[in-house]
């Protein structure tokens, strides 16, 4: 993990021009998608296209200007990818709004645009106020505590509320928020900060049992406790997707930090065991697995678990085929929650496999840029942080798209940037800001610390007489 490649170091260029070019293309996708929705559904270019396009362009260009000013060496591809996904998501949500009979000013797309504005503002604040990601290392335990508190908030009577069987929301006034999304970022910071200090002890000290080096309890204890608490909370709130995400994140970061393959084996074994037990004994999970294996047995049944959502999405993707039906020609509104968990189903129907592949490729590129940042990053905390953020992205996309396409049992998670959901969108914009901060640090040429006693002329200083 130490930066041993520095002797033949890359000198990265700033590439802000390339970023601007990609951002303009992403705007074309976003605004073009919005126009295509209007043309397909109402046979005319939507009336508010100028206002909408202007708003979106202002947000994106604003984010670009912030990056140009405070993170000039940051990765040039991350921001455009995110902007494209967000724009495409807005267009699809708008399409579903129109199907539900909402107008331009009261649909989910409108709210999503407001959430995106908040997300971009937080993105800018994060980049401007956090000039060096290593500062976060000081708040390792504060972040851990913050994550646990945030995860506990929905359990509180009064502000917590159960929505669709999962108690993961808080309501303050008319605002609702999913604190788990923010807790995810905080937990990544905690893991990174803790593991960077203790990875040597974790990797080297300890007993070897059955071919696996077990670390000492006092090294693993705090992080394990923190992680078990968050997992217990999540399981109690029956938020399967997030528990899966946190578990995977923990195993991946432990593996990266200690460079021990044993962790993957242990983590995979624990996961398989846990999954088997859960699928056998927790009724909620048993139903999910049953729906996954036999979706058509539960389609429009009178009683028991319903698989309508999954089956409608499969119908939609099959009907969409390679090129899709086109905006307005499909019926993605048949899928319940098409604008959040099942947005990939809606995209698959109206925009086809071609777009689904492009979207998955974009997610892949985001993860690749995150891991690349981790590789070139010079400090270990930055490496672990970038890996953690990229892995959280990868896991979330895998879990949700795998669920929608029936590769794995469905667990509720939002598709990053595409789905309707304020907390997820805002948290993901902050994640991108953190990744850009680390990559700016990693790609910046080494500062010149040297002073040159041979060359420097002695400065004459007039002494006060």
């Amino acid at each position, binding site marked *: 993990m130490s930066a041993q490649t520095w002797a033949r170091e890359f000198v990265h260029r700033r590439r802000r021009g390339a970023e601007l070019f990609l951002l303009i293309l992403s705007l074309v996708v976003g605004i073009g998608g919005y126009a295509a929705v209007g043309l397909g559904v109402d046979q005319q270019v939507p009336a508010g296209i100028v206002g909408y396009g202007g708003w979106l362009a202002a947000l994106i260009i604003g984010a670009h200007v912030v990056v140009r000013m405070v993170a000039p060496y940051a990765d040039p591809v991350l921001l455009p990818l995110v902007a494209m996904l967000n724009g495409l998501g807005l267009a699809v949500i708008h399409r579903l709004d129109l199907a539900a009979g909402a107008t331009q000013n009261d649909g989910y797309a409108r709210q999503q645009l407001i959430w995106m504005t908040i997300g971009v503002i937080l993105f800018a604040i994060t980049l401007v106020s956090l000039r060096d990601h290593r500062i976060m290392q000081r708040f390792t335990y504060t972040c851990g505590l913050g994550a646990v508190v945030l995860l506990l908030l929905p359990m509180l009577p009064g502000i917590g509320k159960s929505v669709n069987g999962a108690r993961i929301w808080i309501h303050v006034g008319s605002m609702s928020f999913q604190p788990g999304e923010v807790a995810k970022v905080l937990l990544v910071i905690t893991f990174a900060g803790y593991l960077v200090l203790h990875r040597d002890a974790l990797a080297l000290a300890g007993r070897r049992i059955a071919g696996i080096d077990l670390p000492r309890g006092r090294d693993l204890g705090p992080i394990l406790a923190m992680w078990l608490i968050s997992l217990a909370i999540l399981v109690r709130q029956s938020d399967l997707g997030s528990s899966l995400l946190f578990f995977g994140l923990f195993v991946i970061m432990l593996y990266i930090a200690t460079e021990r393959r044993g962790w993957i084996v242990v983590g995979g074994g624990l996961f398989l065991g846990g999954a088997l037990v859960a699928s056998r004994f927790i009724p909620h999970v048993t139903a999910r697995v049953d729906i996954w294996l036999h979706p058509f047995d539960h389609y429009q049944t009178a009683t028991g678990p319903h698989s309508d959502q999954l089956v409608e999405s499969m119908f939609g993707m099959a009907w969409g085929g390679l*090129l899709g039906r086109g905006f307005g020609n499909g019926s993605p509104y048949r899928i319940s929650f098409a604008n959040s968990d099942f947005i990939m189903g809606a995209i698959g129907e109206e925009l086809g496999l071609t777009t689904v592949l492009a979207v998955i490729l974009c997610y892949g590129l985001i993860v690749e840029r995150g891991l690349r940042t981790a590789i070139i990053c010079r400090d270990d905390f930055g490496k672990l942080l970038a890996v953690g953020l990229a892995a959280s992205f990868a896991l979330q996309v895998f879990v949700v798209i795998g669920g929608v396409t029936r590769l794995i049992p469905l667990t509720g998670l939002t598709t990053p940037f595409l789905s309707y959901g304020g907390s997820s969108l805002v948290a993901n914009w902050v994640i991108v800001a953190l990744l850009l901060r680390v990559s700016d640090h990693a790609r910046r040429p080494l500062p010149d610390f*040297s002073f040159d006693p*041979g060359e420097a002329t002695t400065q004459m200083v007039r002494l006060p007489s």
Partner: protein
Amino acid sequence: MSELTLFLIRVAFLAVLWIFVLSAVGVVRSDLFGARVEEPTASSEARSRWSRAKPAKPRRGAPTHVLVVEGRSQGERADLSQAPILIGRGADAAIVLDDDYVSTRHARIASSGDQWFVEDLGSTNGTYIGSVRINQPTAIAVGTRVRIGKTILELRK
């Protein structure tokens, strides 16, 4: 609106989407191959943009060797022409230190351009410049005191 127009809109949208994805891949590619690899010998123009321009020839003040100035191995030295110089307790080190607080392969000193760096090789007790433990390759100049275990090294002219 006719079927054909809608079809064209659909295809145009997909085309724009894929143009975006492929340009993104193109930028990633040019980022990979467009980055200059810094030559270890000649001071590249990229570097000189960020620092003062430096002559290519070894200057008058350039260091020539590493010297152990404090500790049990005091007086040991290694010529910088053999760079990179490995420092540690192991037999393969260029400077073998007799110090219990030093790891087998503790640190190394190498150059990039005409700048000398010290890098910790994952030692147990760390490498310090002043009172600061270094966690990335750190530039050192003539006379900078690098502490390894109970030993202190310096670059000398």
